[in-house]
């Protein structure tokens, strides 16, 4: 039973990573940039929920909605102000700017809320489930997290492959100039990508903090890095890849903590990533792009 319990925990944590990874992979695939500030949008999402529910006393659904809306707007604003001016220049320049945005978000939050950990109250109203006569307990948070991940994944795949806006995103990710020539509004498409990614980040944030109720300005940083790793792991630019990468990463992390060592959990997770990339250099579902000679 222990193993099963850990496995489910791993899938749940992995689902959070997967949702975050989706944001990374979409932005990378379409805007061709690594949005280092993505992890911090997660953190902001959680703080919005915290503020709405615990400081302002608003009902939880309002808090959730506020969080998603604010993060979506934030994502679009960041793209417009900090990233769009640098579009077309080296990807390294945008990366550094993203780092600047990340510092900015972390410090702004720290200024307002202080660096002390806030205790986050779970947004999940569901009670846990007890199976096998109490030997296996699955918390409500876990159920909602895994379910959310599946719904989001399916929804996103349908959106990308079945709607006009989604097709526009695919086109821009393949060939930006050609897409523009076809009449696709590239700016709007990229803004939409950031909007979706950031909205998802808000959801990921509240799910993460519901399960691990410790909230500080740096809460988003490590999960952000791990989710980025998961996105690359699964093949950057691939939506199913982000999901697989995220969930696998969560499982490896929890099992590593349980069976090998808590302190070395991070080392284990990153080692697995390295081994996979050495065997399959473009990630599990990644495409190999051959340079034309």
């Amino acid at each position, binding site marked *: 039973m222990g193993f099963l319990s850990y496995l489910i925990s791993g899938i749940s944590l992995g689902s959070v990573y997967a949702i975050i990874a989706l944001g990374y992979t979409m932005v990378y695939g379409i805007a061709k940039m690594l949005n280092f500030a993505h992890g911090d949008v997660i953190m902001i999402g959680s703080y919005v929920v915290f503020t709405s529910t615990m400081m302002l006393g608003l009902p939880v659904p309002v808090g959730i909605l506020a969080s998603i809306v604010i993060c979506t707007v934030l994502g679009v604003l960041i793209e417009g102000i900090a990233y769009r001016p640098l579009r077309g220049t080296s990807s390294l*320049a945008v990366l550094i*700017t993203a*780092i*600047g945005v990340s510092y900015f978000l972390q410090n702004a939050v720290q200024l307002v809320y202080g660096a002390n950990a806030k205790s986050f109250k779970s947004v999940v109203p569901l009670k846990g489930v007890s199976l096998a006569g109490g030997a296996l307990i699955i918390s409500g948070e876990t159920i909602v997290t895994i379910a959310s991940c599946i719904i989001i994944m399916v929804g996103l795949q349908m959106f990308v492959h079945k709607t006009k806006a989604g097709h526009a995103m695919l086109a821009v990710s393949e060939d930006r100039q050609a897409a523009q020539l076809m009449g696709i509004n590239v700016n709007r498409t990229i803004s939409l990508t950031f909007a979706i990614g950031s909205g998802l980040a808000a959801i990921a944030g509240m799910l993460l903090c519901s399960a691990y109720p410790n909230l500080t300005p740096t809460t988003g940083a490590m999960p952000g890095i791990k989710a980025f790793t998961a996105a690359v792991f699964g093949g950057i630019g691939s939506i199913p890849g982000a999901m697989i990468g995220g969930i696998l990463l969560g499982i490896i992390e929890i099992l590593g903590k349980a069976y090998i060592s808590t302190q*070395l959990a991070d080392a284990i997770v990153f*080692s697995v990533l*390295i081994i996979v990339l050495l065997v399959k250099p473009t990630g599990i579902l990644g495409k190999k792009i051959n340079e034309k000679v």
Partner: protein
Amino acid sequence: MKFMKNMNKTTRQNMITYAMVILAYIIFQTLSVTGNLSSLMQGLLVPLCTYSILAVSLNLTVGVLGELSLGHAGFMCIGAFSSAFFTACTKDIITNDLLRFMIAFLIAAVCAGIFGILIGIPVLRLQGDYLAIVTLAFGEIIKNIINAMYVGLDENGFHFSLKDSMSLNMTENGRIIIKGAQGITGTARQSNFTIGIILLLLTLVIVLNLMNSRSGRAIMSIRDNRIAAESVGIDITKYKIMAFAISASLAGLAGCLYAHNLSSLTALPKNFGYNMSIMILVYVVLGGMANMRGSVIAAVVLTMIPELLREIGEYRMLIYAVIMIVMMIFNWSPKVKTWREAHSLKDVFHKRNVKEAK
């Protein structure tokens, strides 16, 4: 002949860089020795050298070789811990402080360099962003393992454990040298500004001379066009690993300087994780790719800004972040560039340390 004159142009530029460093040394050392330096500045002297060396060494990988490395702090970590471990072990064996310190630097450079080669071999095969994430992963792994490491010494020799001090199974006479998350304590604080500047000059000489030599050209040709480089017979793997290993070695030196500036050395995320790696990367990019002088200037300026902004208190990190974003957009955005050219403002930072057309 014309090329003779121009060959001296690069050398001239490099000489100016060295002169700037030496001048800075003379000024600050004089101020320090005559007691005219605030204790804040005093405490910054060695860190400024450390970060400058880190920036120049990372620029070798990022600007000269053209590969994005996000794990540079890992090599610094190896250098720091290997050298501190050495000085801790040989405290009583090698009594000449300076000699022991010099050997410590050598050990730091060699250990970091070896890891540079070991990591480089598998990693440098990967493309662009994948290479970046793997270097980041390695940096985290190194920090994580060192943080969980226990190493002790008694009459029977060395003992090693990844769990706790108990499992070291040492006799009473044994002492623990590396104590897990507590790291290494009791390091002699031997680093000073003079040694720091000497190391910085050494780093600059190595990197600048390398760039202006046959191997340096080979490395840069890989950056500019790997396929063309192959077609003229450049051994890609050899030169990639060479650049990576030298870069790692120099970071190791910085680590040793850093470690002997503190009495206790711990592998905190702040000091050795991706946070540090990213910070150094920012110095490199803002200073200009392959522009070593720019790397030093950026490292110094960006380290000092938060300190100088201390008066503004709480808001300083926020302002720092805004400065960073504004600087990036000002320097790199095409629209801003056109505006700048229209108002004939020169680049705030020189893009590259390369000769320009007459």
